[in-house]
């Protein structure tokens, strides 16, 4: 469960102050899928950064499974984030001059996973994205879709509870993008990890259980398909 209450984010000070987010409150149950929708510049990424503890809100609190995110000391916060969450970005951010294997290894090194467990974890993650035959290949030699699959393998290798994906298909053609989304939804089902999907694609968003539409830093609408389904029944 991720719960946000009264989150605001103001960039700059006084004259140049710019409110990127104001009074955002909602809850996402553990294991569900959430789409954050909005136009470019509406504040989606800012919201994701704050939800994941990368950025501090100007005011408001975030709880992840009853842990107050911004009450932690930096060291504890790092450890918590290393053990709890992972990221997938629009621009992949895979290390071109490292092998696929080494790319996927990074979160395990950061999380200080014992060395003997690493190999099987990495290979399983690569298998899950069907890149196990590319383990020794340099990431720079992969195609765009393969790079994003590699990024996904890196994101799931540590078996995180929450997976943040910021426009994961933004740099891909629609066929490849569709495959990536299918993969993400399957992982959400199979691994039971919460998926937070930042997107401006309404079709994609519609496939998530929860949708939050942001406009100029405000919540324009919240859709809870599960709640709606329950109400119907």
């Amino acid at each position, binding site marked *: 469960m991720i719960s946000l209450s009264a989150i605001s984010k103001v960039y700059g000070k006084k004259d140049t102050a710019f409110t990127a987010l104001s009074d955002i409150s909602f809850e996402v149950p553990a294991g569900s899928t959430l789409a954050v929708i909005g136009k470019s510049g509406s504040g989606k990424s800012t919201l994701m*950064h704050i939800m994941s503890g990368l950025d501090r809100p100007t005011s408001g609190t975030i709880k992840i499974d009853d842990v107050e995110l911004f009450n932690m000391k930096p060291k504890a916060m790092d450890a918590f984030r290393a053990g709890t969450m992972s990221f997938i970005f629009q621009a992949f*951010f895979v290390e071109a001059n490292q092998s696929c294997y080494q790319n996927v290894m990074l979160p395990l090194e950061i999380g200080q996973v014992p060395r003997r467990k690493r190999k099987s974890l990495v290979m399983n993650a690569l298998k899950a994205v069907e890149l196990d035959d590319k383990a020794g290949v340099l990431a720079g030699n992969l195609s765009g879709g393969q790079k994003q699959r590699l990024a996904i393998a890196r994101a799931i290798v540590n078996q995180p509870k929450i997976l943040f994906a910021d426009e994961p298909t933004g740099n891909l053609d629609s066929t490849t993008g569709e495959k990536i989304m299918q993969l993400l939804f399957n992982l959400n089902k199979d691994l039971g990890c919460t998926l937070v999907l930042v997107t401006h694609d309404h079709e994609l968003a519609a496939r998530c259980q929860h949708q939050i539409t942001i406009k100029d830093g405000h919540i324009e609408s919240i859709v809870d398909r599960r709640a709606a389904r329950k109400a119907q029944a």
Partner: protein
Amino acid sequence: MYTTDLIRRSGRSLASAKTRTLLTAIAIAVGTFALTLTLGASNGVQSYVKKIIANNFDPAELIVTADSGLINKTDTTKPQEYDSSFGSLTTAAGATVQVKKLTDADLLRLSQLPGVQRVRPAVSVALQYVTRPGMRKYVGTLTAYSSSQKPDLAAGTLGDDVPAGSIILPDGFLSSLGFSSAQAAIGQTVTIAVQPAFDQTSLQSAFASGGTAALSQLATPATTLQTYKIAAVSKTSTFSQPGTSLYLYASLAETQKLSDLTTKGTSSYRRYLTAFVKAADGTNPKKLDAVQTEVKALGYGAQSVADTEAFLTQIITILQGIVVAFGIIAVVASLFGIINTMYISVLQRTREIGLMKALGMRKRDINSLFRMEAALIGFLGGILGAGAAVLLGLVLNPWISNKLGLGGDPLLIFNYLQIALLVAALMIVATLAGLLPARKASRLNPIDALRTE
């Protein structure tokens, strides 16, 4: 992150920018190369000086002079006031300095000091010539033998001293004196000629006693011939004192006798520039120090072997200091190369840093990652520079030794512990150079870093 993971990651990052890494490392290697060679030369010179001293001096002995100024501090830039009780000496550069010499009374006084085992004046005689029947005449120097000199013998045997009526002949004289081998010379004889010298004192006394007749007799002095048996033939050693390879040696008593003959009636008669004072149990530095203090308290100059060694190595140390300074300047300059390289590395890897931070990597670990990268560059540069110096040294050593006439002794002696310490020191300063870039990396805001596209 585990340290091994950090090291592996920083190593990989260096390997992925091979040219840049190598160029930065080479800059460090240049300074390291100079430093390693200098250290090697310093070790070699020190060992060479030690061997020379061990072969020529007894560590239990002090070299004592009447004039404490003779040792270390004769100032040739200021005029010295004339003192008739002083003898004069010509320096290697040709300057005349007056020096006070030791007398027999001084020697007696020294030998009576507590802790002194024996006092031995340094006596040598400028011979008129050395020859053998049917051979040409050669100039030569006869010096009192001391067992601490332990000459290498080409033939013959030697006890504690040279027997009375015998000498040690250096092998350089063998063929000139018509000997086919060192062995052939043993037991044979050489003839040594000495001639009384005269100086102002002897002239005055001759004139006073015998007038001009005595003077003219003095001007054509009688040559005294002495025949000596060759007890041993010494080999020219690389470790003999420079310039002494053709010295003939006889016992102190024998040398003294000839010296008396040549100096009788002059101001040099029974005057010694230096004497060797042997301390009882003098290899114990405390006992030697005690005697040295006493000798100095009496107003004499006293120098131990260690002092001599320090004096001999001093000038070399200064020269080496200059090379070391340049080496250090080179290393310092190359540190800016490291700083530059590391800043570029941080810049190029902004996104990677952002991602690592997003994945929960600690600030400290990111800092370590870049500091280790800098340390590795330092290590690489150190190994390259020291390795090249050692290789060059091993290749050139025989050639240099040959050119400098060091015999089989290498000029460059590499101490691997020293080199390891040097490389470790380089890694430390390289790490220091990496501090600022590493700090920059650890302080990067992951959001800004990940926005970079």
